[in-house]
């Protein structure tokens, strides 16, 4: 029945998030007419770059029924260690090399999580809370605490390269940096992984029921180790992207933003309990969180109130889809009872 499919699509988490985002944008536009423009959208994409990349890594973990809070520490560690290594050795390094090195370091740190969670079967929240502190502490104690501001010239020119540059309503330049490509590539990779591979199906299976997954012959421990290695790799890429956007390496950055990212993924329809979550939803979630965080000012909401509004929107955004889902199930049951 087409009508039924339409209401189903409407009740899907992505649709609710998208509707919420559009509604929110309309409300802002009512206060600030210049808001609805291509320039705003470009600015939004640029602001949600790092959140978006991190979110895709978190999606994989949440879909498997785990939770990861250590990814920001991994991102900061990988980014800063890469920079101090390259600056210390003083060898010319192509820009791709920075990303590859950072991704490798991220993968190694992710492996630590993976071994503890997959190999030893420890609870994910406890492990990643521990490694969050461990990685950050190790970074500040052994790698360094000073800001690296004299980053190599090719990093600066990479940061200055824009894919798109246009003027907004008030004549200011708005641009999309080349590092947007990183988000595109990570998106393609995660979408492929989650939707078109056996590995992806195993992740959802484990998230749905770990015991069930084991019974149908999935090597749960191995899959879990890989999940955290991949999440670590993505975190390493996010860290390096953040560095190119800042044009400096600050070891104190990123840590503290993890809840924002997790909120984005959950807003996007992934469930803390596992088994659910899509790439489209996650990206939408990242956009909405960034939109909320970076446009309340244009609607004239004072700083203290911004937190209140962000909180309310997150509760609504995550609660509403669940309520709609429950309501739909309830109606289905009624319909079945009527037959």
């Amino acid at each position, binding site marked *: 029945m087409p009508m039924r499919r339409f209401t189903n699509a409407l009740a899907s988490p992505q649709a609710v998030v998208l509707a919420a985002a559009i509604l929110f944008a309309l409300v802002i536009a009512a206060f*600030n007419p*210049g808001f609805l423009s291509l320039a*705003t959208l470009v*600015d939004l994409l640029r*602001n949600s770059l*790092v959140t978006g990349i991190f979110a895709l890594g978190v999606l994989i973990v949440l879909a498997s029924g785990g939770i990861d809070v250590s990814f920001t520490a991994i991102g900061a560690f990988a980014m800063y260690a890469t920079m101090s290594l390259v600056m210390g050795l003083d060898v010319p390094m192509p820009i791709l090399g920075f990303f590859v090195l950072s991704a490798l370091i991220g993968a190694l740190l992710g492996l630590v999580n993976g071994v503890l969670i997959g190999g030893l079967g420890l609870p994910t929240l406890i492990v990643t809370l521990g490694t969050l502190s461990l990685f950050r502490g190790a970074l500040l*104690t052994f790698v360094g*605490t*000073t*800001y690296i*501001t*004299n980053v190599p010239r090719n990093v600066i020119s990479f940061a200055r390269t824009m894919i798109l540059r246009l003027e*907004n309503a*008030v*004549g*200011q*330049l*708005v*641009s999309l940096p080349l590092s947007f490509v990183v988000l595109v590539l990570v998106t393609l990779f995660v979408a492929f992984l989650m939707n078109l591979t056996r590995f992806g199906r195993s992740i959802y299976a484990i998230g749905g029921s770990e015991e069930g997954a084991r019974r149908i012959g999935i090597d749960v421990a191995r899959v879990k180790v890989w999940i955290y290695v991949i999440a670590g790799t993505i975190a390493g890429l996010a860290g390096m992207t*953040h560095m190119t*956007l*800042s*044009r*400096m390496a*600050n070891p*104190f*950055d*990123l840590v*503290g*933003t993890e809840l924002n990212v997790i909120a984005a993924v959950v807003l996007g329809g992934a469930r803390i309990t596992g088994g659910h979550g899509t790439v489209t939803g996650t990206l939408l979630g990242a956009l909405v969180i960034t939109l909320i*965080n*970076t*446009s309340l*000012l*244009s609607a004239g909401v*004072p*700083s*203290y109130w911004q937190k209140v509004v962000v909180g309310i929107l997150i509760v609504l955004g995550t609660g509403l889809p669940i309520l709609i889902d429950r309501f739909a199930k309830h109606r289905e049951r009624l319909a079945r009872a009527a037959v």
Partner: protein
Amino acid sequence: MTPNKGRENMAGKFRTALLGALAATAIAGGMVGTAGAQDKKEMVTVVKLSGIAWFNRMEEGVKEYAEATGNNATQVGAATADAALQVQLIEDLIARGVAAINVVPNSPQALEPVLKRALDNKIVVVGHEGATLQNVTYDLEAFDNKAYGEHLMEALAQKMGGEGEYAVLVGYLTSVTHNEWVDAAIAYQKDKYPKMTLVGGKLESAEQQQQANAKVRELLRTYPNLKGIQGSAGEDVVGAALAVEEAGLNDQVSIVGTSLPSVAGAYLETGDIDMISFWDPAKAGYAMNVVAAKALAGETVKSDDDLGVEGYEKVRVDGKVIYGQAWVDVTAENMDEYDF
């Protein structure tokens, strides 16, 4: 340089290193000082952690003081900014019977008991960045937060020609010093520059450059006529400058704030940041020892006293707290003088 001279230098360096190592062992072991050190009163500055640019710079000031006065003044610090390690260091110094301890506390509260013990042992204690410390002879602050905030606003107003829209950034809405600076600045603007208007309230950067950047881009979008930005956390002005540069508004927007040349240098050079301010840890290190020496000589420090250090020529004393006016303004012209 001749090879011969090189060898001499090397031998000299080796000797210094050896002496340094010996001194380090003595400190680490908490041993009683050698007879030689007893001749002059020993004054030790305990910093939050050693090895970072800020406290290396402070050590230069302490050394300068030792050279200028001939007093036995040195600086120590743990490898990590840990309150417990700092307590240990001070306990060792008490056991060694030093005359004065200058301390930059990691956690003022955690140090109170051990500082009380130091005072009980007739040791002079001078704090820095610890206006809340109770168990000290004096506490030296580089400046009064209110005066500093007004100073920044004056600089911003000058750049803006005394009119137009401006915005302020703080690290966190809860960080006490940042809000004191900014509140004083806003009050000063309302009083002295009525043609200027604050827009957007206090913006929170979370002390993250990218957050400051996003906030300022949003700010520019909302208030396209914005003419000035005052930052508080070291990252604020950098994030703001990047946003202004990206929007192509370098000529329209003036940026001043607290930061360090090592953080903001690139943008000072291009002129995107007009001026940054901070206080020079070398001067603070020097001045702490001056205060300690005065206290050892039985003198008291009163308001309007001159400590003989730049920025501390006319101090204000409030209880045990001594305030200087020791902010340093850095622009593209003089940024090379500071390596931290």
